[in-house]
């Protein structure tokens, strides 16, 4: 394979495809952390979403793929949101440690999906199901190079294009977003302003779970269209890195995800390309970038001040 335009288009298109699940999950994760709750369980919520999406699509087998994938997406969001609700309950109402709660949810998700995977498909293993319909946007997709890279994807990718901007708008220009930012920075002010810190945080966390679930659906139904046990393979964790990299801004975090997706796509093609770099170093790259970003990000932008700290009214 040579480094030519065909390669560029292939790589660019793959980068976008691989980045999509990350972008969806990252937007949700930004909201959760902005409200003050650390959601390390994104990995488990993505995995649950992936499983549920494939299962629903499987059971709706004969239906119109567009309908099936829509139902699958909704089901995935419910699954992710449900797990996030547990995390929210433990972290917010019970004031348990957020890292541990999230970690437990990851293990729970792995156990549940592995178990239910066998129950549904037995040892028959993978069966392709209906995925998101692919849409090629006319005219735009004819632009040389950029056209095929950006405008010939499954539907969920276009959602991922738009979501970060909507999310940023809501976060910075609406009362809901203001409440979330305040709750993550100085919840006492939110409480004395007459708003509920609890409700605000619950909403943000459940939203992050729904987005993670949708990201899982994108992962499973976007390209491969089947479920493999443990298929998220750490993507939920790289999303955490993207959130920090993107300084808790939905748009910047999404660009970080795009960067990571590009690295992932490159890694998959590296061997055929015979660059001379073993593929493992390319797989490492996003994680290293995240660490460098965290290390270098000090003094530039700090996390929400109350991140990770449960809120109790009436404390000094």
């Amino acid at each position, binding site marked *: 394979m040579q480094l030519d335009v065909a390669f560029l288009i292939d790589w660019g298109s793959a980068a976008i495809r691989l980045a999509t699940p990350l972008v969806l999950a990252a937007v949700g994760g930004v909201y959760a952390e902005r409200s003050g709750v650390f959601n390390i369980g994104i990995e488990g919520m993505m995995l649950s979403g992936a499983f549920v999406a494939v299962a629903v699509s499987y059971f709706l087998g004969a239906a119109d793929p567009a309908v099936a994938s829509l139902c699958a997406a909704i089901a995935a969001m419910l699954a992710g949101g449900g797990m996030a609700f547990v995390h929210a309950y433990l972290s917010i109402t019970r004031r348990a440690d957020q890292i541990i709660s999230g970690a437990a949810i990851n293990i729970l998700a792995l156990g549940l999906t592995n178990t239910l995977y066998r129950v549904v498909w037995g040892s028959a293993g993978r069966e392709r199901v209906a995925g998101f319909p692919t849409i090629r946007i006319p005219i735009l997709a004819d632009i040389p190079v950029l056209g095929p890279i950006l405008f010939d994807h499954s539907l969920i990718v276009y959602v991922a294009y738009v979501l970060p901007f909507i999310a940023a708008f809501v976060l910075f*220009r*609406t*009362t*809901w*977003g*203001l*409440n979330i*930012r*305040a709750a993550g*920075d*100085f919840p*006492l*002010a*939110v*409480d*004395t*302003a*007459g*708003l509920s810190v609890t409700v605000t945080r619950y909403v943000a966390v459940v939203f992050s779970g729904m987005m993670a679930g949708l990201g899982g659906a994108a992962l499973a139904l976007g390209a491969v269209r089947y479920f493999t046990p443990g298929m998220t393979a750490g993507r939920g964790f790289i999303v955490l890195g993207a959130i920090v990299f993107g300084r808790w801004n939905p748009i910047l975090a999404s660009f970080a995800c795009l960067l990571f997706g590009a690295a992932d796509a490159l890694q998959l093609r590296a061997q055929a390309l015979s660059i001379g770099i073993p593929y493992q170093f390319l797989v490492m790259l996003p994680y290293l970038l995240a660490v460098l970003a965290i290390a270098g990000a000090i003094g530039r932008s700090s996390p*929400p*001040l109350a991140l990770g700290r449960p809120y109790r*009214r*009436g404390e000094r």
Partner: protein
Amino acid sequence: MEDGRHQTPELLRMDRITKSFGPLLADDAVTLDVRVGEIHALLGENGAGKSTLMKVLYGLHQPDSGEIWLDGRQITIGSPHEAVAHGIGMVHQQFMLVPNLTATENVILGMRAERRPMLDLAAARKRLVELAREYDLDVDPDAPVWQMSLGGQQRLEILKALFRGARLLVLDEPTAVLAPSEVGGLFRIMRQLASEGRGIVFISHKLSEVTEVSDHVTVLRLGRVTGTLPTREATAHTLATMMVGREISLARTTAPVVGTDTVLEISGVHCVTDRGTPGLTGVDLVVRKGEILGIAGVDGNGQRELVECIAGLRPVTAGTILVEGRPPSSALREPGLLGLVPEDRYEQGLIGDFDVSENLVLRAYQRPPYSTNGFLRWGRIRDNATQRIAAFDIRCPGPLAPVRSLSGGNQQKVVIARETQDDPALIVASQPTRGLDVGAVESVLNLLRQQRDRGAAVVFVSTELSEVLALSDRVVVMHKGEVMGEVPPDPAALGRIGEMMMGRSLESIDAGAVA
């Protein structure tokens, strides 16, 4: 007597409010009655029940019994939201502002927007600027709160309350964070708001301010109302008696003592606060063996930073500090140099989960006899605890009791017992009597006197002027990070001390007096 007042309509009446937290009775049948257009001062020492009462008013706590009447109608206040809806605005001691949001965003937080859910920042900003101009309150609507000075944040808090149409404004210890020059501005606003028909509740423990600005005073002591009267009929003396319950005397136990060799030497020291603002701006001080130096001043004028610099907990950006000729970095690590009684005894001075014996060796555990060859000798640690508990009369179930189960006064005794164990050359006590009851205050002051008599150099930092004058051999006043001057601990010097606290240097005061 109170004829005129009876005729003014009643704005707020908190009637026989009682609130307890477990065994602690914070408010006992407290009645507070505020008239329209009145500045009503709520006076009392720390722990008298003022904050709890106001938290009840603001809906953060529910009273066990008692009623709240607003404009003659009985109401219940279930949450801060309801309080705001009733027109009650509160400026807390700790500001309820979100640091990373702008002033405008903070003001509109929680308010119903015109076109929900869209934020109408432009309109809010405009209204904020109008209000600021109307009341002559200088605030930058676009600045993030963390960049604003404490005085600016307080102005913003007041504007926040006015923005929501507050008719009753509660100010909780508002002058604690203000420079003396800003206090006048605050009082001006208070009078202006009152004249417009609002009611103001002004919480303070400072007699001078209460007499200066309020119309009516209610005094609380240990959860009960000990007196309520028009300010013009109150003298500082009667008020003080109501607050403390006995004659306050500034009488000393001994005459001021002169120290001998220099122990602590501070020359031209500058440092920076956590926020990056100037902390100390050129401090020169000398403290000698066998004397107590009292450092007075409004909280937040560099006292905290000075203590941290002496202890080596904060870097000095210019100048030198020498403790017995050693740099501050050795102060906490070498035995016998420094005993530090920190400002926040529970957060900074003790480890709540550890027991009394462990807390007593927090600084000494590395040395014999408490450890040998890297291993701790628990037997010795326990014996030491038994001995110190007896020597300091620390009331606790035993050396193995978790320190968080002790009362405040006994916790402070643990700290002092530990810090004085090695007979350090220098003792720095920062607000050591804060939050303690009268008996505990006396013990702490006596313990400090004993250390002075032993030959230690003692630095006593306190905002309680009466204690500073009663205990110290020399008094200096800090203002905006520097020492304004030194005076003997004479009640007659109160005037000069007050002026120094407001920023005038001793030279200019004396020069002015002469002229």
